[in-house]
């Protein structure tokens, strides 16, 4: 189970800096996601690990060995592409057997490897089919089987599930993770889909504009983002403006624009400072409007409602001015109608406080 280490890896194309001084360690047996918007450098980074692209500077180590300039074939990797690249002139068996054959294994060993790979990816009854006889999900599996059959211990997935329908994609995400974990492989998975990253990874590496912004477990990134961009990129979040009105040993109080007060456990930001509170949609709850005012109970009005299957999604305009999203998990039909005045109860224990950015909120809310 190899460990992968990137040491100040950079990649320049003329004036464009695709990857900017990236340092990264992926541990033995870890399943890691490289997550970020298009153009953030995640695919370039993966290709540098694979040896399909050479870095402008920096070093790549796989299993302690310096492989920066070694050809991909010598790095013992399995690479799965977004568009599969299944050789159209060979059937499934020959495609999957190509890797073992190149490694010079004998007939019996090749057969064993291919069968194992086909069994793992549930393709045993398609071994004799040609690629043009298979549908997209099946081709996807062949790509994975082909990588597995090489016997490589490091798997690299480049938006490998990108071509699949959402339902099939969701099933595959979990299957892929199971396969990697069961075979005790190390895997690095590039995606722009934060739900996918959460579903498959032990740790997520968030990239933007060539740089790594934050690395952590899904819960860490979701509840403790270190940047407004990450809070906004990893699932939807509400951003409410306020000013720190009081700081105590146990936390701070934030005064919103309409005078309502939110109380949070965070106490890092000084009094009088302008802040942004980031709070997830599902941490808000709607209650019928009552005229009292209390901490973390904010008045507003329902301006939108959508049924999303397993949850209700409301849009509420706060008296403080912001429009917030509320998601409630419930089977019962919604008790609130459009235009109803409501009180929004906010669970601030998992809210995040940011200093109001000096260059304005917009650049941090950009999804690119």
């Amino acid at each position, binding site marked *: 189970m190899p460990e992968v280490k990137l040491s100040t890896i950079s990649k320049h194309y003329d004036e464009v800096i695709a990857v900017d001084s990236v340092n990264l360690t992926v541990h033995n047996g870890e399943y890691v996601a490289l997550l970020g918007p298009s153009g953030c450098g995640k695919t370039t980074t993966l290709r540098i690990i*694979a*040896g*399909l692209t050479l870095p402008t500077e920096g070093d790549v180590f796989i299993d302690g060995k310096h492989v920066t300039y070694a*050809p*991909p*074939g*010598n790095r013992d*990797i*399995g*690479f799965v*592409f977004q*568009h599969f*690249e299944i*050789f*159209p*002139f060979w059937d499934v068996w020959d495609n999957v057997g*190509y*890797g073992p054959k*190149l*490694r010079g294994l004998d007939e019996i060993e090749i057969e064993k490897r291919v069968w194992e790979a086909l069994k793992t990816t549930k393709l045993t009854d398609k071994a004799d089919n040609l690629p*043009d006889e298979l549908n997209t999900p099946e081709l996807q599996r062949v790509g994975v089987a*082909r*990588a597995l059959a*090489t016997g490589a211990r490091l798997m*690299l997935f480049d938006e490998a599930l990108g071509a699949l329908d959402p339902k099939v994609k969701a099933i595959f995400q979990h299957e892929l993770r199971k396969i990697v974990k069961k075979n005790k492989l190390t895997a690095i998975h590039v995606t722009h889909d934060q739900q996918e990253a959460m579903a498959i990874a032990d740790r997520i590496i968030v990239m933007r504009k060539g740089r790594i912004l934050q690395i952590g477990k899904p819960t860490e990134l979701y509840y403790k983002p270190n940047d407004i961009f990450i809070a906004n990129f990893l699932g939807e979040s509400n951003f409410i403006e306020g000013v720190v009105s009081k700081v105590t040993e146990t936390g701070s109080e934030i005064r919103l624009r309409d005078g309502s007060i939110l109380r949070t456990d965070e106490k890092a930001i000084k009094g009088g400072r302008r802040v942004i509170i980031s709070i997830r949609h599902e941490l808000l709850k709607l209650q019928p409007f009552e005229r009292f005012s209390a901490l973390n109970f904010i008045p507003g009005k329902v301006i939108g409602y959508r049924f999303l299957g397993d949850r209700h999604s409301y849009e509420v305009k706060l008296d403080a001015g912001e429009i917030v999203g509320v998601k409630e998990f419930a089977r019962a039909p919604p008790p609130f109608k459009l235009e109803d005045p409501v009180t929004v109860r906010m669970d601030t224990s998992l809210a995040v406080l940011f200093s109001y950015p000096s260059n304005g909120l917009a650049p941090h809310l950009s999804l690119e």
Partner: protein
Amino acid sequence: MGAEGVTLAFFLVVILGPTIFVFSAVFLSWNEVVATVFNDPIAGDIRWQIMRIALIRSFEIAGIVTVINVIIGLPMAILIARYDFKGKEILDTLVDLPMAVPTAALGFSIFLFWGSRSGISVLFGLESGLVSRGPLLIILVHTAFTYPYIVRSLKAVILGIDKTYEDAAKTLGASGFTTWRTISMPLMKEGLIAGAILSFTRSLGETGATLIVAGVYDTAPILIVSWRKMLLIPATAFLSMILVTIAVVMLVLVRFMARKVGFPIEKVWPRPEQFLSGIWQRRFRNSVTIAIFLVIILLPSLFTFQYVALWWNGSPATGRFESGVFYQVFRAPDLKWAWLLISLVTSLQIATLATLINLGFGLPMAFILVRRKWGKINGILDAMIDIPLAVPSSAIGFSAFLFWRGIINPGFWLILMVHIIFTYPYFIRPVIAVIEGIDPGYEEVARTLGASDLTTFRTVSLRLTGRGILAGAIMVFTRSLGETGATIVVMGLSRTVPVYIVDLVESLALPAAAFASIILICISLALLLILRYISRSAEEWK
């Protein structure tokens, strides 16, 4: 690196060098050139005058032919590329036909159709041909054999434009005609120019058919041939050099100007354009297009078959058996059938060798151009590949003759060297297109699975390009079979079939010429059909 060095050396020494050798030949013998062309003691500068006129004629004809071809070829390209109808495959194959027919045979057939009394003039009850030898006949011949080039390249361009753009325009309210004018044509611009250039240079350089139908109307390639026969080497060299220079300059200029050409989109005429888009107008336009194709291109091209059938057992007018094809070829005392056989063998040998050599040295070159990233050098190399295409084949022939003089003398081997030169781009261009068409992902996968560069090439790249390469090889073979102009310049005592046809026509042995043409046409046709079959199945692996 060794293999690449050899490939590049081959290109420079065998292809490029001989092609541009005229330049140095002219400069080295400049005094002689001046003496024979400008200051001949007897003729003064008459050769210069003749040269000028011939050049002007060649360019005029090429220009007219190109314009005609764009006008009649564009609707045909649109018809085949965008519409589905019964018999489309057949029409598509028929359009390619003139390309498969060696130009000498084509020229002869068209001459029979328009210019002899057995052709179309029969319908009018005339005693002689409808169109006599001269510029008009040259234009008809050139139009016929450049037509497929234009239609093919326009068809490829149209197919390359995503149909969704045209759909989008329609949903926004544009009629069919408006969509073409404002969306499709601008997107086709580059391809249209490329097709036009191809047509122009083909017309400029064609020799074989022109020899047959020109009569006394000398164009530049014809002049090269006749001066060569008269051994006026310096004058021929000078003419070749001018031809090459002008052709290359034009190529560069047109490519440059292509950027500037725009199509007016600011102006709209909704009502008239809507009228032109109507379904009956479209049907009318398509019928006219097909009719023109049949009458001006196809029927004249294949007329030889009718002629041979008519004249097989004797002259249809006098009934004399000895005038018939059968007697002339097989029974006449000069053993034409034997000469035909010998020249056929020569043609096939040369074509085969040229194809094999191109495969060996052209294939690596194509891969170098596509896969190696040498920056600016790639661009220059790529542009140089096209030079033999732009230069008229008789000029190439002459330049090569000078280049190899003393080392290889006129005859079989010099013919081969020359054929290699002008078929080289015909092989490399389609092969480059096929290689570029391969998804680089396949090669990357192979590398991640452990394949070395060579193994990747052998097991993956070659499998994916194989059919395209085969198609390129067949094109080379066909081109070599049909070439006339350059061959005449360097043939010495050897004969290939096209050249033999020219000989027969000049000695007025028309029935025999017709027979030889048919043999050549049939072989080329068979190759064309195989080519189409391979191209079709190559499409499946996109």
